[in-house]
């Protein structure tokens, strides 16, 4: 455990009673005294606070950076307005996914990126290999990233950052909190309304204290972060997205805007555009056990009635808000129709399960005031 990195707020999380576990090379708070279920439900009912400073914050800028980034992601970037955020994937030549990420346009040729903690060093190597000399990449490793998520997040955060009140989903702005520069982005990984705030390490402790003092807030660990994203059908890189899955197989076509679907011009476009027109060999779906009770967990094998392997659960567990098992996985295209009955192999036993929508709990983003 000695080679693990510490979050700048590790002492703070200790004071909050967190239990820690290694994740993405960091010692991360996995749960607090409230427990995974309590933290999950509190976030759906009120506001949860998450330290996600392990994630990679990057700044990419310079003449031609927009076009250069469009070579690496299938999202349409040229049309974005300053302060707009888009979700996309770093694709590979094969059409597989190196990572998924958020891109914020700050100016014509200035981009803020947030990538997964476990992938950030590979991502940076990928950018270095592919970005032209005039485009620079800065790793912002001196800033913490704190997420404030839940139906009360807007009201709660507005008390200390008034600009939060009117910021809509997938919009970002730069402002100050008590005179300190922050980046406030309306996005998250819980399916709820909420924000991510980037703040310099030197001020992270003060900010964490201020958030803790607000009514209705509780700290939430990685355990509940996982069940919250899983219930609302959001993919986890490493489980649901890998170098062997394409954005089309992952049912992420919505994140590839029309121009890119016809023009291509990104790594893996040949495979991805062909899958858009002809269909992908397999598809990400939701799965629910017929008994309504047995959680179908990661790596559970899926079979058809004849006993042939037709897929696998990539993320699965129990959803406290759904109050039942929630799982997603991949099945062959033919079997991806909602309502298809399959067999899950759980501890050597065959358990009937059904293909369903992977969104078990509706997302509640604030797209309009």
């Amino acid at each position, binding site marked *: 455990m000695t080679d693990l990195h510490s979050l700048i707020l590790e002492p703070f999380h200790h004071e909050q009673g967190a239990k820690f576990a290694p994740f993405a090379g960091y010692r991360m708070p996995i*749960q607090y005294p409230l*427990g*995974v*279920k*309590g933290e*999950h439900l509190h976030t759906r009912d009120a506001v949860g606070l998450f330290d996600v400073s392990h994630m990679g914050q990057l700044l990419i800028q310079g003449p031609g950076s927009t076009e250069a980034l469009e070579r690496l992601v299938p999202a349409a970037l040229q049309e974005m307005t300053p302060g707009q955020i888009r979700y996309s994937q770093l694709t590979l030549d094969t059409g597989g996914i190196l990572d998924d990420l958020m891109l914020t346009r700050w100016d014509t040729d200035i981009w803020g990126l947030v990538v997964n903690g476990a992938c950030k060093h590979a991502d940076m190597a990928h950018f270095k290999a592919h970005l032209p000399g005039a485009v620079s990449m800065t790793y912002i490793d001196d800033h913490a990233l704190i997420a404030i998520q839940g139906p009360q997040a807007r009201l709660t955060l507005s008390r200390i950052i008034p600009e939060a009140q009117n910021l809509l989903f997938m919009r970002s702005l730069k402002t100050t909190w008590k005179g300190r520069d922050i980046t406030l982005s309306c996005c998250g990984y819980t399916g709820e309304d909420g924000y991510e705030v980037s703040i310099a390490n030197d001020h992270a402790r003060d900010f964490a204290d201020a958030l803790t003092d607000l009514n209705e807030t509780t700290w939430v660990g990685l*355990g509940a972060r996982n*069940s919250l994203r899983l219930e609302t059908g959001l993919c986890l890189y490493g489980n649901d997205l890998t170098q062997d899955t394409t954005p089309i197989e992952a049912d992420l076509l919505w994140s590839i805007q029309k121009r890119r679907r016809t023009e291509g011009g990104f790594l893996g476009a040949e495979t991805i555009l062909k899958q858009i027109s002809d269909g992908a060999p397999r598809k990400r779906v939701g799965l629910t056990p017929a008994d309504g*009770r*047995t*959680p179908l*967990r990661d790596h559970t094998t899926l079979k058809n009635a004849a006993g042939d392997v037709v897929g696998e659960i990539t993320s699965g*567990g*129990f959803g*406290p808000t759904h109050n039942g*098992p929630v799982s997603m996985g991949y099945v062959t295209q033919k079997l991806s129709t909602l309502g298809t009955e399959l067999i899950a192999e759980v*501890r050597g036993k065959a358990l009937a399960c059904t293909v369903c929508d992977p969104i078990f709990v509706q997302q509640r983003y604030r797209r309009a005031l």
Partner: protein
Amino acid sequence: MTVKYTREHEWIRIEGDTATVGITFYAQEQLGDVVFVELPDADTSADQGSEVAVVESVKAASDIYAPVTGTIIESNEELSDRPELVNEDPENDGWFFKMQLSDPTELDDLLDEADYQAFIQEEL
């Protein structure tokens, strides 16, 4: 009536040649919120140390082992509808199954309460 413990954090309450089995307070605390328990069918025989039940919390699935050799005679059906009993009352209403013992001498290898408390102190 005697209560014994295993290093896998099960308790065994022995009455004559019948043993009632559950998981300890410490075990449920480590597991977190229990959401599902898969119980063995009655009349199945189980060797000491074999997997007979599964307890699932929001975090993970954990196997429950038969603490002694014998035959399952009853499972706690109430856990199907109320798995949270494992957290609320692990050492009474949250019991898992009852066994008919085949070899009572196996009990000698299990921990008594003082030994078990010392064992979890080491784990902490």
